[in-house]
């Protein structure tokens, strides 16, 4: 069963000077139910745009976006989204942040809190219920964001470079924790990152996008056994072999994007 399908998707944005900017062009992508798909690509290749289209926050300019074989027409309550920047509510306590989803969906506050406590336990934040987000570390805030999203039992989980603001150690610890959380509910995941190591360590499938306008350059199945420990998997020789193959595909795109960005800087 396919959980997510993008067929010939193109997304154009109007630019400030009246022109249009094509972020994605003829993108085809399928993610099976329960599959963990990582999308990598150079900066500005439309990785995040892919997620906003699947989430229903934006509509494609051409092509089709399907979730569970139905076209996406708006925000779907079965979709969860973890943002790159902090998107937890700073004025709500940790407990109220995590119970926000169920409360928005009309579950009583008491029941929502029971569920929220359970999810806080799963992400290791028991004892922090009454804190405000600014009183937590970056890693803890990410856990709150994860619990806040997963409590809604999304069938599709979209993640936009969720750990990019964390330091390297915290990042690999969080990645391992993400895998064990994912294993509990097994949503289909689209995980956007520019970090190839992170992509291979987490995913069943790595999709390489071209330098903008983004389209799929190549797909790689990651057959590393699960459960994985992200901190250690990079020493596995199969990991290294995969990394070399995928980097081969990614390198020219990164170089092209870099050349373009420096060219623009020089021209400006």
């Amino acid at each position, binding site marked *: 069963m396919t959980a997510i399908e993008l067929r010939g998707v193109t997304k154009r944005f109007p630019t400030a000077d009246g022109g249009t900017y094509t972020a994605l062009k003829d993108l085809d992508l399928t993610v099976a139910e329960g599959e963990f798909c990582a999308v990598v690509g150079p900066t500005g290749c439309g990785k995040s745009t892919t997620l906003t289209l699947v*989430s229903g*926050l934006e509509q494609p300019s051409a092509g089709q976006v399907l979730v569970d074989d139905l076209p996406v027409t708006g*925000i779907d*309550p079965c*979709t*969860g*989204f973890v*943002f790159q*920047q*902090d*998107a*937890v*509510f*700073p*004025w*709500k*306590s940790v407990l109220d942040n995590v119970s*926000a*989803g169920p409360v*928005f*969906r009309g579950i009583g506050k008491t029941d929502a809190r029971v569920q929220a406590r359970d999810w806080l336990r799963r992400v290791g934040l028991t004892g922090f219920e009454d804190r*405000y*987000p*600014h*009183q937590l570390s970056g890693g803890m805030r990410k856990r709150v964001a994860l619990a*806040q*999203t997963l409590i*809604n039992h999304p069938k599709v989980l979209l993640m936009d470079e969720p750990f990019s603001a964390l330091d390297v150690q915290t990042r690999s610890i969080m990645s391992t924790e993400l895998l064990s959380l994912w294993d509990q509910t097994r949503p289909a995941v689209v995980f956007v990152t520019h970090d190839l190591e992170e992509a291979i360590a987490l995913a069943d499938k790595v999709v390489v996008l071209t330098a903008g306008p983004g389209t799929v350059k190549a797909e790689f199945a990651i057959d590393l056994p699960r459960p994985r420990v992200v901190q250690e998997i990079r020493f596995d020789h199969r990991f290294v072999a995969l990394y070399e193959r995928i980097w081969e595909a990614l390198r020219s795109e990164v170089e092209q994007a870099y050349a373009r960005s420096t060219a623009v800087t020089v021209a400006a």
Partner: protein
Amino acid sequence: MSGRRPWTPRRRFILGLRIGVLVLWLGSWELAARTKLLDPFFFGQPSTVWSQIVTWVTQGTSQGSLGEQIFVTMEEAVIGFLIGVLAGVVAGIALGRSRLLADVLAPYIKVMNSIPRIVLGSLFLVAFGLGLTSKVLLVIVLVFFGVFFNAFQGTREVDRNLMANARLLGASRWQLTTQVVLPSAFTWILASLHVSFGFAIIGAIVGEFLGAEKGLGMLIKTAQGNFNQSGVLACMVLMAAVALLAEFLITRLEKRLLRWRPAQAGEADLASL
């Protein structure tokens, strides 16, 4: 900021200097008045201002007890303030959330904001008489716009990520407004309350000035009519005391409502004084 700062030598020193400034200011004024360097008939004199307050407290004013005058003015200011703030917040958020409403009403709001609204006091006085209503209306008109513009701006500046996150978590439009937009705009709205309360008091006093039977504004007008400068100054002192109390209460409210915010560096040494 926090009430229990330790009494460091520096703090004692600052407090000492502050008291010194006050003594120097009032002392030189008093001295100048006594030596006729400053004519107390025109510029008053600290000791007569004080004795004026004492007389009002012990013997009442020509319009009744002093407490009653203060109560009347504060009643007008507070009722008008509350209505004005509520109206400002509701209108600001409504226009901030609805592009159509904002586009349609924008020119009217600009026009209303640019006219000197204090003049409306004369209109209200004729239409609604010498009582409470005309003052409350003037206060509302003065308070509304400051709060409105802040609420509007606050609504427009809500973090787009937070909005998207709330929508994805399942929030309805109304839930977005009450649980994301309102708390987010609170920072802006609360900031406007300090200035707005000042406007509320001005509105009440000017309203009474234009015509009333009771209140501090009326007391000032009577004092002015009798060339009693000390009376005018005494009213100012009383209003300053009341305004400081109100400012203290608003700051307390602000801290309570914004306790989710990290303590901000440099947040206002001026506010902590």
